[in-house]
């Protein structure tokens, strides 16, 4: 057994052959996938903050209904009167919190940032297949976000019918009480859909055609697999939402009747279209998180991922089942109950691939040599919290049990366990993990650990009790639960949740500080700080424009941790050529195309 020489790989540190670019071309209207990823990162972190601030106001109102909100005075009288949140502002808050978090924070954070940043780096190519379309995808996403944000500044305030925009509420200004912002919502979604489709076309094409020699399908890291399947979901789901949003926009503006029951329109049609998009969207929001967590857990455990193939098939299975479960959002909608039975079965089946993933992550940790760096801690947090979110989903999937908990805080708890406990913990793992690759510096481990433990505690204190008040029957999106006799006894829990939520928000300041401070003062990152196997670690930090000078070769799968050939090291990167390795045979057709 020869010991592996971890020689400096054939990375291209020099930009010499690239013409020097102006600041604008390099950092603003950049076509470099890494810069675009970083642009997405800053923009979506901003929208994450917006969504968080909205959530804090929701929590104030639910914890202390009718009491003047501290600092509420800075908001206009049409939203907050005498410090008291008005009911019409409250429904704007819940609507925009959901909209921003789903469409402008989590989705771009996972897909916009990490699909852009990781795909070319991890498959060993120089850039996306269509760099200019990629740039447009970012600018359209930003435009969509700004249009959505503009909703707060038009007369009557932001859109108000819930992030699902159920018609006819959303279609008729006299019923929602808002005109312009409802239209802005529709326009923003159409623009965002365009951005998403552009991005996804890019991701799919790049992954299919631009993999480096030797990067076979089953040598791709699970993060790339997940992003690939996610892109397929996005490319097929977003246009459906776009179509629906266009119909809604026409209902709102030129007086068409798609969702107007008075003229034969069908309110349930909106729900079917929305959830036909919406359920794949749920997986768009979790699959990339699963993929990245898989990479990080394998790294932290110093072990190959347990059951790589079944992990891939689980991703595909989840994505496939994701198309035939949309009706489970509509069990109580008046849809034919027989359809409900069908959707129940398909929904319950989704638990199977999800369970496989959880057990495989555990299998990966089993007999590993666990390193608890911040990404690993957050990844373990992801597994344990996603498990709760997944299991609580079974309650809703079983239709009779769904009856009392549908549209209650139980659902709110469930979706936050998946989206916060799942997606956001995965991001808290992914951001520090690839931070050195983006900025050349490490985020502080000490602050990171403190942030993880505090977030984990307050997060559970915030969202777990929501299950209980949901079981007690507290409906979603109600402004003041205390007017109901059956909800009054639960008010102390609501208060407790609010305090926890404020603490949770406060803890995120640690993360923001860590993120921003490390940009300038973080420890300089070594080339492969996590001793990982991915192709991206063959490059210097931050990775240069164009990535590699020469397309790299790939010699093995992505998870060869603790492989016997690795000798005294416990990792064996994909780019390292052992004496026993032969170079891959070049593809018969030039894969690049141009």
């Amino acid at each position: 057994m020869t010991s592996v020489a971890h020689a400096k790989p054939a990375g291209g540190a020099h930009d010499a052959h690239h013409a020097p670019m102006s600041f604008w071309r390099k950092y603003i209207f950049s076509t470099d996938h890494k810069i675009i990823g970083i642009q997405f990162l800053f923009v979506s972190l901003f929208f994450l903050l917006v969504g968080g601030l909205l959530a804090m106001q929701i929590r104030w109102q639910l914890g202390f209904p009718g009491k003047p909100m501290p600092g509420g005075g800075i908001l206009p009288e049409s939203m907050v009167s005498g410090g008291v949140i008005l009911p019409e502002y409250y429904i704007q808050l819940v609507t925009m919190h959901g909209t921003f978090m789903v469409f402008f924070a989590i989705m771009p954070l996972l897909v916009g940032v990490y699909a852009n940043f990781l795909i070319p780096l991890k498959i060993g190519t120089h850039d996306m297949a269509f760099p200019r379309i990629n740039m447009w995808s970012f600018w359209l996403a930003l435009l969509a976000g700004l249009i959505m944000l503009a909703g707060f500044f038009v007369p009557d305030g932001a859109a108000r019918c819930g992030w699902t925009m159920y018609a006819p509420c959303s279609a008729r200004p006299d019923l929602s009480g808002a005109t312009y912002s409802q239209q802005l919502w529709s326009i923003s979604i159409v623009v965002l859909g365009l951005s998403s489709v552009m991005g996804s076309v890019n991701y799919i094409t790049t992954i299919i055609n631009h993999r480096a020699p030797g990067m076979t399908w089953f040598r791709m890291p699970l993060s790339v697999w997940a992003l690939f399947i996610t892109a397929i979901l996005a490319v097929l789901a977003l246009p459906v939402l776009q179509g629906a949003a266009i119909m809604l926009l026409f209902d709102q503006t030129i007086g068409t009747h798609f969702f107007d029951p008075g003229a034969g329109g069908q309110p349930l049609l909106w729900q079917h279209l929305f959830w036909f998009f919406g359920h794949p969207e749920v997986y768009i929001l979790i699959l990339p998180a699963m993929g990245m967590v898989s990479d990080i857990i394998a790294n932290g455990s110093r072990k190959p991922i347990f059951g790589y193939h079944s992990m891939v098939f689980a991703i595909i299975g989840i994505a496939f089942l994701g198309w035939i479960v949309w009706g489970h959002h509509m069990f109580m909608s008046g849809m034919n109950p027989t359809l409900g039975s069908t959707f129940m079965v398909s929904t319950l089946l989704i638990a199977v691939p999800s369970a496989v993933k959880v057990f495989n992550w555990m299998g990966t940790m089993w007999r590993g040599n666990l390193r608890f760096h911040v990404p690993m801690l957050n990844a373990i947090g992801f597994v344990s919290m996603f498990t709760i979110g997944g299991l609580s989903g079974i309650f809703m999937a079983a239709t009779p049990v769904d009856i009392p908990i549908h549209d209650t805080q139980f659902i709110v708890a469930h979706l936050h366990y998946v989206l916060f406990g799942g997606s956001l913990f995965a991001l808290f793992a992914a951001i520090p993990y690839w931070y050195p690759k983006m900025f050349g510096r490490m985020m502080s481990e000490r602050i990171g650990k403190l942030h993880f433990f505090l977030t984990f505690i307050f997060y559970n204190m915030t969202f777990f009790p929501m299950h209980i008040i949901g079981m007690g029957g507290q409906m979603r999106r109600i402004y003041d639960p205390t007017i109901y006799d059956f909800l009054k006894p639960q008010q102390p829990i609501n208060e407790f949740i609010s305090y926890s939520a404020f603490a949770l928000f406060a803890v995120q300041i640690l993360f923001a500080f860590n993120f921003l401070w490390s940009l300038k003062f973080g420890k300089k990152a070594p080339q492969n700080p996590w001793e990982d196997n991915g192709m991206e670690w063959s490059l210097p930090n931050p990775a240069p424009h164009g990535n590699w000078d020469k397309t790299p070769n790939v010699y093995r799968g992505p998870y060869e941790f603790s492989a016997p050939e690795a000798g005294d090291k416990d990792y064996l990167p994909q780019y390292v050529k052992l004496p026993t390795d032969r170079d891959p045979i070049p593809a018969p057709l030039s894969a690049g195309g141009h």
Partner: protein
Amino acid sequence: MKGRIFSVVGGMFLLTVCSKGDGTVQAAPPAAQPAVPTADVSAAGGTITGKVKFTGTAPRNPAIDMSEEAACKAKYKTTPTEENVVAGPANALANVFVYVKAGVPAGQTFTAPTTPVVLDQDGCRYHPHVLGIMVGQPLEILNTDPVLHNIKAIAKANRPFNVSQPTAGMKTTRTFAAPEVMINLECNVHGWMHAYAGVRPDPFFSVSKEDGSFTITGLPPGTYTIEAWHEKFGTQTATVTIAGTETKPANFTFAAH
């Protein structure tokens, strides 16, 4: 329409000002006679005065079951009723909006008073039930009840609005930009709550009192078409000619069907 949207997007920053202006609270004291605004018209003009009556039997106003709103119910000794037809003694008809429909010379403009017209929500009913207001004059909507009311203005010529007031003491001030007779105001939380606002460009309007009387003052000489509007009985018109500082009568009789 689309153009409007885009101009809205473009001017989003300017619009923060607009959205503030929509709901500014004004600390002005309520006017003594909210339904009859004082306009800066010389008292020297002519006056139209009269009585509104109806024939037949007035339909019974349905009783309101306020048992869900204990705070409102407590304000009444007897079961409150709706105010669809408020009749006074001798078949006098209250809550009739009487205004000069035509005859005011075109181009003549009148300054709206800054004193607001107050619409009070008290005991889960609107006070007053019918009001007149000038274009540009502030309408102060006040919630005296410790329960949620929303005020939905169903308007065509004006921009409709729908605002809510969850706690007692909340005030919202709105103005109307165009004349409109009548704007319906309703509360969707309490389905029985209806009020009507007549928005006029001039100060020549009045709402009949419990005894059916109304007075329009300050009219310059001319021939006027006067219209009386009642929520259940429809409208009636009369023509009155004013020659100087005289007082002319105009009586209306509605038929209760």
